[in-house]
């Protein structure tokens, strides 16, 4: 677990996928674009699907095309973190690309979403079924960004717990904090279910929550270029109005 994020402050040096994605090193750029794609493909897919009311096949093609262009340095070179948020930039790029494709009437057809990035469009399509109609595509994009970030944070947490032989911590967290069960299981019920003392349940959950917070913030750090941008994004993530 990284020490530099212990106090929630921005470390002096950190790996930023945004900076790496703008670098001239093809290998570093490729890895960075993969990380950006992992965080943003669902928000982009669902956004174009809902905003432009296109078919799932067209949305899948568009998503592949969009992130391939990112890899080809078509968009990201013009991104300046001091002028706006990455996710707003990407959403604007998606809008522009879509309008350009409509205008030029030559969408790149790669065949139902096949392409450089192995993305699970079936899963994204299933998730879209629960999207309320009242939400604007822009609001949905923001929500999907948060969901995507938390999902990646959870994947990190799972890896950490696996590597430290603390999967029971993760499973407890999953059972208590990640399920929509109503009513929630009590700590006593969880203790009986997992064969633990109630105090262990309390301690394990506290550990998992603390590590989850760290994993999400680490993930967010990587997705930002500067300390200031990180703080802005973290404040947005935490729902704190930036003054």
């Amino acid at each position, binding site marked *: 677990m990284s020490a530099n994020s212990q106090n929630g402050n921005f470390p002096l040096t950190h790996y930023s996928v945004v900076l790496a994605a703008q670098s001239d090193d093809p290998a570093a750029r490729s890895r960075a674009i993969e990380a950006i794609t992992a965080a943003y493909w669902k928000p982009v897919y669902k956004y174009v699907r809902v905003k432009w009311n296109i078919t799932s096949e067209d949305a899948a093609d568009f998503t592949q095309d969009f992130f391939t262009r990112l890899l080809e340095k078509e968009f990201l070179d013009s991104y300046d973190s001091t002028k706006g948020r990455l996710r707003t930039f990407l959403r604007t790029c998606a809008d522009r690309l879509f309008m350009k494709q409509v205008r030029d009437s030559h969408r790149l057809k790669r065949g139902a979403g096949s392409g450089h990035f192995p993305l699970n469009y079936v899963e994204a399509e299933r998730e879209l079924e629960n999207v309320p109609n009242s939400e604007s595509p822009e609001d949905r994009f923001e929500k999907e960004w*948060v969901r995507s970030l938390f999902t990646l944070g959870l*994947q990190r947490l799972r890896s950490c717990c696996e590597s430290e032989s603390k999967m029971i911590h993760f499973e407890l967290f999953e059972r208590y904090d990640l399920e929509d069960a109503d009513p929630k299981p009590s700590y006593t019920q969880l203790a009986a279910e997992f064969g633990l003392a109630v105090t262990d349940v309390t301690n394990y959950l506290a550990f998992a929550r603390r590590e989850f917070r760290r994993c999400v913030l680490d993930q967010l750090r990587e997705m930002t270029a500067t300390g200031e941008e990180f703080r802005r994004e973290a404040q947005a993530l935490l729902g*704190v109005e930036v003054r």
Partner: protein
Amino acid sequence: MKQLSDSVVAKLRAEMQVPDLDGTRYSVVRQLARGGMGSVWLAEDTVLKRRVALKVLDLVAPADDLAARLLQEARILAGLEHPGIVPVHDAGTLADGRAFYCMKYIEGQTLAQHIARKGLPDKLRLLERIAEPLDFAHARGFIHRDLKPENIMIGAFGEVLVMDWGLAKVGATGLKLAENEIATVVRPTQNSLRVTGQGSVLGTPGYMSPEQARDSTTEVDHRTDIFSLGAILWFMLTGTTPGELPAGTGSMPRPLRAICERAMAADPNARYQFAGEMTADIGRYLSGAPVLAYPEGLLERAGRLYTRHRTAIVLVAAYLLMRVLFIMLERR
């Protein structure tokens, strides 16, 4: 991994903000308030088995300067031991790196709630009690700079507490700290102008003195709090913030209006110079004596004297009337 539902995402977002109290004697109960850079949490002191309030910086607050300021705020509060100022029990850094301090949890009402059913004399006596801790702090060189009804709490036993010293400043006569500005995490309300740092506008419109609103920190001294105290009296008497459309000011006694106006004079030299001067004038009003802020006319003086000595005047008048009647009857 299964998709996180909207409700789970909302819950995780809330969870992200909960301070990590691992290794401390406290456990979180719930959030009480939040501001631009921090939040206040109700917590339980697991050793003493009592409820306390924790003021905690946000995870992503801009690093060390705010942490130092929060500590300074805690030190100011710790140095101001007065029944009208919330006591600080503890301060430090949490496991997640956030600075915090622990203070007494006040269960009570805000000023607005408390005065809803109070009569004029009760309101005036309450203002006297608000002024006491201010006078105490001013005498030690501290200026609150954000006095407003939301920052006055009335405890369960009727104790009056001046809260939220987050914008407090050490005046020229006060203790010298590392910085002269101690702006720090606060609990902003919708109307608050909250910018931290030296040379910025701090305070709340309507309750902020003109010199404070002008951002002239060198001009601001303890008399900026006198202005706010006048604005609070105005609020208590009218239910409105000064500057808003007047509601029922016509029924406000002229001496009290004059007290408000003197406290809120644009020129600090024209205000009461100390909180105690203002409360002395209020005390005079309560006892029926002439107030310094209001030069009354002959009729008003007569009316006031009549109100103050009504019983004696009525008895004397009745006696004189009877004497006159008696003399007239005798002459017949």
